């Protein structure tokens, strides 16, 4: 389908639903008492029936966290978070280990239906005909509700389950890799996550296996005043390949919700992990009230030679985004990629980017970042590219472009480039501009409305990144871009 038709269709939809995922599900939930203490950490661990080593690990993180300060270097402003006024655990009451979909609370199933997420295996993603199968792990507040296509994946040897289940069924793998990429001392939010993480996805793709389908996790915050702390761990063994997608939404609430996730990726020799995110947490209302604080630590470790990790992100939601998916290029000849579209509108604040840390020989990385700021928002790209002494022949290409729509928003670029090796070749370029009057005039003279024209031009601006998304999600994302920019013109 040509992009133009989609764009026009999408723009038609804009008026009806601005943030169409803003409903909340009325479902009974079990919560831990408010606040954070060692007892809460023990409570979460006990609730999940975790082994002693994991509890100790959590407690160590908790004690460490108590000594840490919130980072203030990002270009974001928000009132101080009262970490003792949050619920650290919330779970829908009826999910004490459902065996099949029939046992899952129908209210929950309806929620996912509304969100367009297929939990029944015979279904495919809403609105996409003939799309390949996608296995889904659905996380609702603090727990994983259901994971689809488990048997089919198991035949290929792929382990795809919630991380709590993995702790029970594959403790050796979890113990070996958990915290090996993002250590518990890493940063304020990652340490907090290590102490109280509730659930998340676990993927292990064994040696030489190409995962037969796309894997995906769908995160949903529902409960009020609840922090969501999920932990994702993906391991691609030698020569394995996996493509993984996460999506996020939350109901509209006046209070700010905290989301502090940690994602760890490990790629061994010749393995490849492709990680795509479509982040559409509730961004707050037109006055900047409410919305999700998205403070996420994502890091991939190209541990093996010739391994590859590719991050693709589409960031349209959240009141505040603080997120730097990174690659540690440890293996010789390993490759890291980062493709990002970050759109901010209203009073959203985005401070996002990546780190490419070249440690091994012949490593290469590529960064394409497209930031679009509209309304009263601030959109910052912050990135680091570094080559260490032994990173002979490291190569990096960075291109970060910003587009400003309106004169009340801001776009900023803060790249750090550190070359400690002469044979490292780094190229960095960045531009900031507005939508050119010529382009706009051309579209208008062809009969498009101004808003349609802007959406069309913006879709062209971000095309390089859109192309990196799995096929099935491209259409969805293009729609999302139009919706996010609604009201930004005129």
């Amino acid at each position: 389908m040509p992009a133009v038709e989609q764009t026009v269709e999408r723009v038609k939809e804009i008026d009806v639903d601005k943030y169409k995922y803003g409903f909340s599900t009325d479902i009974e939930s079990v919560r831990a008492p408010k606040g954070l203490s060692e007892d809460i950490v023990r409570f979460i661990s006990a609730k999940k029936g975790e082994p002693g080593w994991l509890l100790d690990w959590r407690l160590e993180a908790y004690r460490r966290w108590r000594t840490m300060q919130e980072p203030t270097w990002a270009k974001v402003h928000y009132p101080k978070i009262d970490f003792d006024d949050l619920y650290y655990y919330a779970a829908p009451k009826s999910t004490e280990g459902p065996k099949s979909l029939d046992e899952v609370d129908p209210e929950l199933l309806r929620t996912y239906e509304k969100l367009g997420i297929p939990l029944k295996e015979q279904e495919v993603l809403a609105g996409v005909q003939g799309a390949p199968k996608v296995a889904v792990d659905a996380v609702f507040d603090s727990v994983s509700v259901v994971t689809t296509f488990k048997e089919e994946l198991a035949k290929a040897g792929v382990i795809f389950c919630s991380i709590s289940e993995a702790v029970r069924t594959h403790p050796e793998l979890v113990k070996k890799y958990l915290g090996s990429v993002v250590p518990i001392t890493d940063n304020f939010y990652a340490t907090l996550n290590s102490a109280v993480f509730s659930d998340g996805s676990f993927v292990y793709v064994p040696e030489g296996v190409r995962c037969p389908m796309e894997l995906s996790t769908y995160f949903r915050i529902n409960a009020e005043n609840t922090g969501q702390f999920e932990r994702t761990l993906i391991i691609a063994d030698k020569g394995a390949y996996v493509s993984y997608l996460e999506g996020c939404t939350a109901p509209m609430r006046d209070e700010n919700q905290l989301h502090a996730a940690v994602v760890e990726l490990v790629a061994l020799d010749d393995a490849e992990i492709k990680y795509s995110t479509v982040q559409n947490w509730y961004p707050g209302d037109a006055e900047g009230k409410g919305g999700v604080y998205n403070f996420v630590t994502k890091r991939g470790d190209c541990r093996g030679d010739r391994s590859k990790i590719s991050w693709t992100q589409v960031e349209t939601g959240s009141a505040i985004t603080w997120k730097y998916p990174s690659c540690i290029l440890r293996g010789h000849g390993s490759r890291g990629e980062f493709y990002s579209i970050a759109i901010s509108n209203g009073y959203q604040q985005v401070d996002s980017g990546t780190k490419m840390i070249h440690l091994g020989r012949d490593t290469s990385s590529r960064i394409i970042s497209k930031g679009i700021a509209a309304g009263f928002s601030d959109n910052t790209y912050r990135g680091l590219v570094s080559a260490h002494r032994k990173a002979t022949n490291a190569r990096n290409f960075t291109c970060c472009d910003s587009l400003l729509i309106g004169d009340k928003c801001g776009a900023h670029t803060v790249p750090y480039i550190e070359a400690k090796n002469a044979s490292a070749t780094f190229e960095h370029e960045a531009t900031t501009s507005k939508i050119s009057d010529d382009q706009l005039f051309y579209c208008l003279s062809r009969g498009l409305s101004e808003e349609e024209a802007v959406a069309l031009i913006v879709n062209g601006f971000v095309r390089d990144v859109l192309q990196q998304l799995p096929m099935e999600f491209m259409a969805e994302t293009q729609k999302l871009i139009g919706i996010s920019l609604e009201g930004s013109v005129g």
Partner: protein
Amino acid sequence: MDLSVQQFRSEAEQALLDLYERSVDALPGDASVAALRQSAIWTYAGLGLPHRRVEAWKYTDLRAAIAEIPPLLAESDAPVEDTAFEAALGKAFAQLPAYRVVLVAGAVRTELSDVQGLRDAGVEFGALAQMLESPPEWLMASLDTASACGDDVLIALNTALMTGGVALRLPEGVTLQKPIHLIHLDGADAPGSVYTRNVLVTEDGASATVLESFGTLGRAGVQRNAVTTVSLGAKSAIHHIKLQREALETIHLNAWVANVGADARYNAFQVSMGAALARNQVSVRFVGKDAATDISGATLARGKQHCDTTLVVEHDVPACESRELFKLVLDDEARGVFQGKIVVARDAQKTDGKQMSQALLLSETAEFDSKPELEIYADDVVCGHGATSGQIDEDLLFYLRARGLPEAQARALLIQAFVGETFEALDDEAIGDAFAAVSADWLGAPAE
């Protein structure tokens, strides 16, 4: 005086406060200047020397680099031979036709300077130390420009301790035919600190080329802190050029702060090749529409040299243009730092800003750190930056060697071509050639 704002102070940090207290009574200036000094030393006392955790100094840890604070250099009237100029600045710059003003320990050496020539050409000229005793309004305004830099410790220390330098004012419409060459030469005998402040003011429509060169007479370690404030009236122009060729014992801290009026042009050009540690700051603020600036230069560093260039261009008003191009050649264990920031305020529509930094690493152990930054609040702008880092292109080298050039010569030629691009952009051909000559000296290759 109780200066206990900062909790912990390194020995050198405390020594700077002691230096101030010891010297304060002898520092030049009337009561208004003394008040500026007082407030500046308080700024310093609160912040201390900048270190890695101060974002603007992320790659240059001044607190770690400065272990001792030598006393303020005393004025000297020891003769300076012509050969000393050549040794310090290179032949080409020593012989450059210009209105020459020689400063030793910040004091103007009139017998070596062409002050009369400057005055005849219509320039208002004075030694800073004397002028501070009863500063005219335009000088006070320039001093306030520096004070407005707030928490910039380098500038605050300079305000607190400045002992010398010159003040130059070009009245309306005055255009100079020759460059003004301010020569700073120190380090003949004992180690010392030298704090100089130069003030450049061009009234509407005036224009001049001002070259500041920094060299060393002997091998005594000098801690230099030199600040120049520049104020450009409407339709005026300044070409502000710097050569830094100080001895390896030197710590060289330098800041240029320019306010650019409507339709004015401020071009800054800097070449750094000396000093153990050099920090070059240039900050340009547009205060009138349709003005332009070009900040360019080159860094040549080897051994364990550390050279930091930090630029800030603030577009506060609409329709201004800024261009930046810096080239770094880094050999041995040298470390080159380039930080450039373009800030475009909400009202500064039609801004056009471009920035480029390129590093050529000649050895496995050289290091280049770069932070090109854009901070943009206006939507009708075209801004961009680029940064590259790499080694000599093997294909180019092969081409030259295939033409019969020995490897060393072929490399030198490629390096010269790399930095030469910046020299060629200079309007003043004689100065461009002089830079080509000193950079050729640096490379050890014969000049053309």
